[in-house]
């Protein structure tokens, strides 16, 4: 049961704006949300990108991501999106990201990690309405298999020898809404070397053209097929340029700006490895 105490902490809109204008508060929170992935395996490339929506850069959304390689060679990655668009949600996103990294480094298994993450959100949120969509991944040490757990998050896109496709997996409700619900596990075994695109909903909810049409996951999939690095041009730089180009293209389709924030991560197992 939530008490009324956290509602008393809400700041006035004016106070909130001031807090963000002073000495790049936004930049500091942004570092909390969007860290440098810690992967030492040279065969694994992680490109990441973030673009604020048209609400302007003044207030961040609660989009966050992270990726870490553990001593046993496995890789853990997370992407998430806290609902709402105030400084409180951005701070909550940073809190969840750091909780995820702490628990991952401490060697917690996925089930327990996600249970604690949910409890963190419920304890730390200022607004009882806050929830977060989350996707977490475990990549095996041989890089040949992945485990995905989804909580209401947009479906990742996998590219392997078989082409590009949406990774359909069972989902539970977003974190913060169903404290006791299980996290269904989806196992993925890509064919050969692979790349995976993790993203937040801002990347698929942008307008396409003048009408009410949105890009959607299928539209994003088409763009990935069109823009992904060609075979023979698969260096690390090509993959970084791909992600930047993809976000740029989505932005152009939306008429030059995105209505919502976008965070995306493009994880690639180097070809031939």
């Amino acid at each position, binding site marked *: 049961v939530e008490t009324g105490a956290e509602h008393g902490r809400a700041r006035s809109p004016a106070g909130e704006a001031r807090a963000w204008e002073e000495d790049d508060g936004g930049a500091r929170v942004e570092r909390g949300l969007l860290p440098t992935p810690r992967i030492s395996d040279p065969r694994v490339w992680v490109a990441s990108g973030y673009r604020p929506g*048209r*609400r*302007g850069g003044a207030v961040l959304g609660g989009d966050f991501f992270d990726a870490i390689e553990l001593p046993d060679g496995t890789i853990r990655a997370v992407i998430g*999106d806290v*609902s*709402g*668009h105030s400084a409180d949600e951005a701070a909550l996103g940073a809190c969840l990201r750091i909780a995820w990294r702490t628990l991952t480094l401490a060697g917690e298994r996925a089930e327990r990690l996600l249970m604690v993450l949910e409890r963190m959100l419920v304890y730390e949120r200022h607004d*009882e*309405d*806050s*929830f977060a*969509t989350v996707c977490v991944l475990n990549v095996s040490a041989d890089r040949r298999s992945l485990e995905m757990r989804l*909580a*209401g998050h*947009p*479906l990742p896109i996998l590219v392997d020898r078989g082409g590009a496709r949406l990774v359909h997996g069972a*989902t*539970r*409700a*977003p974190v913060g*809404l*169903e404290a006791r619900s299980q996290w269904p596990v989806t196992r993925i075994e890509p064919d050969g070397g692979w790349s995976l695109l993790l993203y937040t*909903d801002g990347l698929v*909810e942008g*307008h396409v053209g*003048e*009408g*009410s049409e*949105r890009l959607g996951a299928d539209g994003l999939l088409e763009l990935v097929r069109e823009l992904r690095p060609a075979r023979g041009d698969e260096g690390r730089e090509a993959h970084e340029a791909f992600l930047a180009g993809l976000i740029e293209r989505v932005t152009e389709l*939306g*008429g*030059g*700006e995105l*209505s*919502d924030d976008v965070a995306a991560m493009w994880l690639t197992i180097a070809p031939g490895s």
Partner: protein
Amino acid sequence: MGAVIENLQGAALRRRWYCRAVLNDSHPQSTRPPDPPPLLLELLGAGRGCLRAIVAGEIDYANATTLQTQISAACAERGAQALVLDLAGVEFMDSSGLRAILHLQRELVDGQGGLVLLDPTPQVRGILTLTGLDRQLPAADTLEHAEALLGGGEHAEEGP
């Protein structure tokens, strides 16, 4: 806050009252050419203690909170414990809209009532499925079905 409500009293049939609002969305000034269409809200009485809110347009971060506040106030004003949220005219909804709906659901359930979504469009059904919230937010294809779900108790569980 920018919401215009006209009370059109004495409308027909079983409607004890009728009102219609245009929620002026608060999209910041933008150079982007197409402005989003306004979000329309109509409120109708639908049986005892039940409110039917007909929403049309696009629900996003710019208007979701206003929508939630308007419907919440209308429920309180009319003493409605049950809400049929008619989404047949909603072409797009994002996670802000989900957040608003979940808020309304919690308020109603706290008051021993409940909420049913009526005839959500494919895009809205898509986001409900994607987020796994189709299990938490009951939906109905017809008004009769929605009222039956609400009449059967506050936790109508099965979908259409």
